[in-house]
């Protein structure tokens, strides 16, 4: 093969590789989602419990032999315009029994603000067993100046929760998104 032809062939191949790698950067986005789902990573900030292999009928049966302690945690930074407190910081509940608690929020600033709460669950394996049937965290919350609200969470714990888990922490980080209006509604987490 003439050297020139060999050079051109290899150059074309390498240039094509560079172009493909450019595409790989974009392809990484769905690829990450696939991989994280498959490896069950990042379940700790899933807002809705994902499908678990369990008989849906049994999920409603109350397991009287276990008590799970569920701690409700709150975080926000110094600039946050609300004051938020959990009505029941710790609840001791039986898996399967329907529960209800609330966060009390007060907007102590002079302007109407919009808030988003991002959940995080420890241990990560517990995330799919904590089923929230109704939660303030599903939507943005808006409060007028100096008003307050009760932010409800209706939930139960799937009795199929692995045996070694006795304590679960549900933590919410609150973000002020008043100045940040997306053009399209946010996808559910």
């Amino acid at each position, binding site marked *: 093969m003439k050297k020139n032809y060999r*050079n051109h062939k290899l150059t074309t191949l390498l240039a094509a590789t560079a172009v493909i790698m450019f595409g790989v*950067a974009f392809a990484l986005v769905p690829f*990450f989602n696939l991989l994280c789902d498959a490896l069950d*990573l990042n379940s700790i900030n899933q807002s809705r419990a994902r499908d678990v292999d369990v008989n849906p009928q049994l999920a409603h049966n109350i397991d009287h032999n276990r008590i799970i302690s569920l701690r409700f945690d709150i975080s926000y930074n110094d600039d946050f315009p609300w004051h938020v407190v959990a009505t029941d910081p710790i609840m001791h509940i039986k898996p399967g029994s329907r529960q209800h608690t609330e966060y009390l929020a007060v907007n102590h600033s002079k302007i109407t603000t919009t808030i988003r709460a991002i959940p995080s669950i420890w241990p990560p394996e517990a995330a799919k067993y904590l089923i929230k049937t109704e939660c303030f965290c599903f939507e943005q919350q808006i409060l007028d100046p100096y008003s307050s609200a009760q932010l409800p969470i209706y939930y139960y714990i799937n009795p199929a929760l692995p045996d070694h888990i006795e304590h679960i922490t549900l933590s919410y980080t609150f973000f002020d998104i008043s100045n940040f209006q*997306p053009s399209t509604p946010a996808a559910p987490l």
Partner: protein
Amino acid sequence: MNPPDAVVPAPNHSSSPAPGLWRWITTTNHKDIGTLYILFAFTMFLIGGIFALFVRWQLFSPDVQIMDANLYNQAITMHGLVMIFGFLMPVGVGFANWNIPLMIGAADMALPRLNNLSFWVLVIAFIVLLSSLVLSQPGPNAGWTFYAPLSASYGPPSIDYMIFAIHLMGLSSIMGAINIIVTILNMRCPNMRLRDMPMFCWAWLVTSFLLLAAMPILAGTVTMLLFDRHFGTTFFNAAGGGDPLLFQHLFWFFGHPEVYILILPAFGVISQVIPIFARKPLFGYYTMVAALIGIGLLSFFVWAHHMFAAGIATGSQLYFMFITLLVAVPTGVKIFNWLATLYKGSISFEPPMLFAIAFLLQFTIGGLTGVMLALAPVNFQYHDSYFVVGHFHYVIVSGAVFAVFAGIYLWLPKWTGHMYSYRLANWHFWLSVISVNMTFFPMHFLGLAGMPRRIVDYSLQFTNFNMVSSIGALIFGVSQLLFIYIALRSFNHGKPASNHVWQGSKGLEWILSSPPPYHSFHTPPVFTHHEHTSHHHEEKLS
């Protein structure tokens, strides 16, 4: 003397280059382009160094306030971008351009016109980047890692200049990498198999593949950033369904191979220097090649060790910790092999060797702090502290930059035809080594004591070590002026250099004259390979 490995072809015409300035704009000669890259790189070194000195001046003590926070952020951003993309990468490509054709017995690079384009695109890139400071204040101020959403939602218009400049730099690097791969794979002289190549060429072969795979990822990332900034996309914006963490993943998927792109060519230089001045063949040729390939491959799998504190899952942290510790192994193999090369060698301490030995000690220190950082649980304390700054400056400055100095001191007589002053070079060496440690060692303690990085001011208790660091930086900066003087002076002054220059030199580049003819190896040299065994044939005195 050197047993003749190859025969210098009878000199045919040494056609001289075009006269005047036009020569430098249109040259396709690998020696010219190598020179251009190196001169450009050292200009950027001085510019990046000036940014650094402003940073260290601001940080000299808490009551120093020579610039506001926004200007300070620009200084650290530009320092990083200029040093990495403007100095280290171009100087490496300059070395590659000068040396690879000579080492493999080729007349020039495979794609000489692409070579010229690669260089001048880089110059345009830096005109764009540096002019943004003047034309569009505030300049880029989001750090050299320009995370979203800072760069996306809050970045000034100059970030767009930066994105454009990065695209151009990436293009330059990718074209250069393609050129190097094609040259190495296709243009070796007859009888030179890949396993007969000097280690410098192997280092550049692996580095070029890293460039080819990683730089386009950066291009994709900054394109997404540009689109988020101006075209209504929300790649990095959670409110639109995207994720700021995506930026970090994408950036570091490029960013980690990038730092190996910075260090592998340095490894290649050290592998050339040590055997020459130890008068002993490089220990473990095949394991050195395997280590290069191993480091290159693994570098794609470790990126999230820059993100331990970003909120990634525990399982991810564990995986990245283990795999990062793994990549320390082939690196350790290389250090061991260099030491084994020194063992029972006949060692002399000319300037290249001084820097190579300093590299061994200092890079190892940086590597060890890297292992410390790899431990995910303690990374939570080190992250975003001055400990990290200390780590990477050790591996980059007293690692890669020292290797650059070693390479310049090694090859300058070959390229210019003149020996430089050993006395001055020794001054440069000792001033650099002492000041580099003065500048960066205290940073480890500052980090452990809690000083964050990327801050314009700091708490009082960090003052003393910051003062030491700033004084060290000043001395280091001034010492590099001495280096520039030494190098420039050798262009026209100094004792004429022989062909082989150094007593222990082996390889095709050392059989040519110093300086080599403008067009060399027009006819491929006769090359006979020998096996890389540890029990080499006895050198016979001729």
